[in-house]
């Protein structure tokens, strides 16, 4: 009897403790965030680009500059900058009062340390920091003036954009001990705990410079499958998810008043490369093909939903590169496309439904892979091309298969979804069609384009650069160089537990202080 009483008392005490403690828990603001895991969720900016993205996405790191939703550069950890005439010496004034999450001041010396360290470690990883800040560039710190001065070996007109890229985030190199999981940054959240391949427990950075951090704790849970993310959200297991890449689930959430879906016009472009070293070197054929595909209908269909915005140029229409001034001579017109081929003598003479060119039936190899609805686009293209009398041999595989086909020219069409202005500037992306570029995977060669591209590389003035880009885009459109799928939109969806969340155009900003709990 006595034993039983004791047991009862202990139980009572335990229950009371729990109840006594619960008000404190109730007040703690916790966000659960379901997201895709990239590169095992590691966060060392110097090791891999994905890790650098993770570090920024989880709200750990911030960089000197950042992009707004129009991909314009704004100061972040920097306050202002000055640059000399030939864009080789940049003096950046740092924001006052910024501390790392461990309480250390972010001084000019700390910034120099971070920028130097990432480049020193660069060769050990695949982040290629030298692409954003040359190895030969020197960084000088002036702690008294709170400035860093960067001297470049040759002009970089997009240095601010490059410094905004997650690889160049400012971290506390000297005091970070676990670079893989617990990088010390200046962001609103810091790592409290992690479970390999499962997720992170983040807590608010008590030293955050940008005002009150809305959540005390953020549980980051890795979820690979888009449907799993949507289901977890609907089951109340998570409050917020990013990038539901599955139209059906996205629509389910959009149709339900209990959830809010935020869609950002992203800076990714889905497009099919066209191989100029194959039968598609034929201008008429290529132009007729582009003309035979109804891009608007595909993007507006239930299959693609709101995940892509239709367009005909390689650069997204939302960017300020003059999309609205471009003309599309090959807007959808299946009859005109067929007439064009008939006129050029590319006809179906043996009645098998497939036209012939130089006596050979036109059967084109279509490489594609299942990501961001690419296979759906490839299927849709195949369907439209069948109408035109063009046969397709589908070669759908993994992203590696698709990549290998691309770099070995083993394709006629190769469908991909690429970031156009990852560092705020399409220099690298537009090199894809530059005759002398290593990343010209399609064999396209146009002297006029090459001349414009070379001029673009040497131009500092933003308006002039935009103008050149517009001209370059028009040439690509006129030459029917790619089949554009559309511009991929990123998304975030959240339940009523969250007051507001927003997905940014540059989708390496996930956990920001904009995400707040419901009132």
């Amino acid at each position, binding site marked *: 009897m006595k034993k039983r009483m004791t047991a009862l008392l202990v139980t009572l005490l335990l229950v009371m403790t729990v109840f006594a403690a619960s008000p404190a828990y109730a007040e703690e603001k916790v966000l659960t965030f379901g997201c895709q895991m990239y590169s095992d969720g590691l966060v060392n900016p110097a090791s891999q680009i994905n890790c650098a993205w993770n570090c920024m996405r989880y709200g750990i790191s911030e960089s000197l500059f950042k992009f707004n939703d129009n991909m314009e550069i704004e100061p972040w950890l920097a306050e202002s900058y000055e640059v000399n005439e030939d864009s080789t010496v940049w003096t950046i004034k740092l924001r006052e009062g910024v501390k790392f999450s461990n309480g250390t001041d972010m001084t000019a010396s700390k910034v120099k340390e971070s920028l130097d360290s990432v480049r020193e470690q660069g060769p050990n990883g695949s982040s290629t920091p030298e692409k954003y800040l040359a190895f030969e560039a020197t960084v000088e710190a002036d702690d008294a003036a709170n400035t860093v001065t960067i001297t470049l070996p040759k002009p970089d007109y997009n240095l601010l954009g490059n410094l905004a890229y997650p690889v160049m985030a400012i971290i506390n190199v000297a005091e970070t001990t676990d670079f893989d999981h617990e990088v010390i940054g200046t962001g609103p959240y810091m790592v409290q705990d992690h479970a390999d391949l499962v997720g992170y427990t983040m807590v608010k950075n008590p030293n955050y410079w940008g005002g009150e951090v809305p959540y005390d704790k953020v549980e980051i849970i890795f979820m690979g499958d*888009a449907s799993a993310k949507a289901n977890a959200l609907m089951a109340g297991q998570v409050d917020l998810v990013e990038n539901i890449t599955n139209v059906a689930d996205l629509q389910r959430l959009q149709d339900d008043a209990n959830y809010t879906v935020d869609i950002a016009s992203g800076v990714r472009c889905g497009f099919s490369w066209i191989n100029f070293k194959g039968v598609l070197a034929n201008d008429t054929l290529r132009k007729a093909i582009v003309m035979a595909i*109804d891009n608007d*209908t595909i993007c507006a269909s239930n299959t693609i939903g709101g995940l892509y915005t239709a367009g005909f140029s390689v650069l997204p229409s939302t960017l300020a590169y003059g999309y609205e001034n471009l003309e599309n001579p090959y807007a959808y017109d299946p009859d005109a496309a067929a007439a064009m081929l008939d006129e050029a003598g590319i006809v179906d003479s043996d009645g098998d439904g497939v036209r012939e060119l130089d006596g050979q039936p036109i059967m084109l190899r279509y490489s594609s892979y299942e990501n961001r609805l690419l296979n759906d686009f490839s*299927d849709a293209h195949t369907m439209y091309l*069948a109408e035109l009398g063009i046969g397709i041999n589908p070669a*759908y595989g993994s992203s590696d298969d698709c990549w290998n086909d691309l770099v070995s020219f083993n394709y006629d069409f190769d469908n991909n979804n690429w970031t156009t202005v990852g560092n705020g500037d399409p220099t690298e992306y537009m090199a894809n069609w530059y005759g002398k570029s290593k990343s010209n995977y399609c064999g396209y060669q146009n002297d006029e384009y090459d001349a414009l591209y070379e001029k673009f590389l040497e131009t500092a003035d933003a308006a002039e650069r935009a103008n050149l880009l517009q001209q370059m885009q028009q040439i690509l459109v006129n030459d029917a160089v790619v089949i554009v799928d559309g511009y991929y939109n990123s998304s975030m969806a959240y339940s009523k537990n969250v007051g507001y969340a927003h997905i940014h155009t540059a989708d390496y900003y996930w956990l920001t202080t904009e995400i707040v709990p419901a009132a």
Partner: protein
Amino acid sequence: MEKKRFIQRYPSFCIFAVLAVLLVLVAVFAPQLSRGVNPIKGSLKESIMPPSAEHPFGTDKMGRDIFVRVLYGARTSLSSTFILVAVVFVIGSFLGILAGYFGGWVDAVIMRVADMMIAFPGLVLAIAVAGILGASTRNAIIAIAVVTWPKYARLARSLVMKIRNTDFVAAATVTGSSTPYMLWKYMLPNTVTTLVITAATDVGGMMMELAALSFLGFGAQPPTPEWGSMLNEGRNFMQSAPWLMIYPGLAIFVTVVIFNMLGDGLRDILDPRSGEGR
């Protein structure tokens, strides 16, 4: 009178035989049954529409009629399954009979290769083979054939070994029968019944394996209508547009059941060990 007795004796076999014939007829007359609607042609404006009078099974992601695609899918699925079963039957039996009849190093070589093949889980090896060969219906057939023939070879071998040393075989040898004659006239007939039963009961399983490979993207390539790949196409829409999966799934289910039951029925008739066999 004889017919009636047969039906009374084997009702299950007769019912499923009729159903199987019906299925084959559906495949053969798919163009007529679909009233000329093209299974490959759709309109994206009508994509993912629920079942209606116009599209009894709804439409898929490309706005194609799922009813028509299921009908045409019977062609792809049945023909590839029959080809697959025929291939493994012929190759497996041939090698098995050789191994059983000649013994010695012929037996050792064939059977060790067979052992190697069955040392791996079947579908996993098939995925590997299909992955190496590239995705297509033909390669999926090859992949599954590669992992399935040992079953027939082992069976044929054991059946041959059972009669290899019997007196009538010895007598045939003594009277000067040539080896091909021996194989053809004595070995094959003594194994074929069991092998045919095995093949008949295997049809359903083989169909499932082909559908599985297509589901995983290693079999039929789009836009070919094939039940396994249709299931895969509809996978993401399981909750919001279940008709994308239900009808091809039902088609696989019904077909597999019919052929499995038919195989069982055939065994009842042919298997000398089952009590009612003749």
